[in-house]
């Protein structure tokens, strides 16, 4: 089992409203971390990606950060 934030905290669903959780998967510029950095499984990475994109659309996370 991959050793990452989601499995360590037993998180099965990633919610777009969990900004504090999602912020751990974006870099200081606001870009989504690659799987090699996030250490997530492919399924988890897809979930996180979907949640971040929803949060961006709803103005909870920035698209870019200067």
């Amino acid at each position, binding site marked *: 089992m991959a050793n990452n934030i989601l499995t360590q905290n037993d998180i099965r669903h990633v919610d777009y409203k969990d900004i504090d959780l999602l912020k*751990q998967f974006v870099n200081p510029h606001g870009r989504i971390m690659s799987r090699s950095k996030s250490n997530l499984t492919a399924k988890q990475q897809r979930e996180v990606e979907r949640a971040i994109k*929803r949060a961006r659309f709803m*103005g909870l996370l920035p698209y870019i950060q200067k």
Partner: protein
Amino acid sequence: MTAEEANAPAAAESAETDDVVRVYEIGYHIIPTVKDEDIENIVGGVRAVIEKHGGNFIAEGAPALTRLAYPMQVLTDGKKEEHDRGYFGWIKFEAKVSAAEALEDTLRGDANFLRFIVFRTAREDTRSKMRPPTLREVKRTDTIKSSPRRAEESSAPVSEEDLEKALQDLTAE
């Protein structure tokens, strides 16, 4: 094959999916210029649309004024208005596919909504209970630093004799 025949399977498929009950979530931003009293009515309108189509509510987050990560523009009376905050709320509900589509259609024409999103989700609570520990640690180090200083100040009830002795020692040097 005629056009009718080609469309037949698609029509049958949509009729099948129409009856399926699914769990959806709607997240919305109400424009910040709306009065506090009216917010409840606007949310009530959303709930009415869901109820009208036979939906059941699972969970709800009350709208709260939130700062947006970037300014959003809306067209009101042909003019572009920019907003940097909005009342963000959400509702998780169970309804047919047609109900979700109807909800999207009604919200699209509503000027009170800055932005909204409707998507399929899971029935259980998807928000994680995990909290990042960083903020708490900072507070703890602050209290540790401040407590010994106070202890030093309070533990200095020096008698006059001791003071004079110390002064004499200093002057002798």
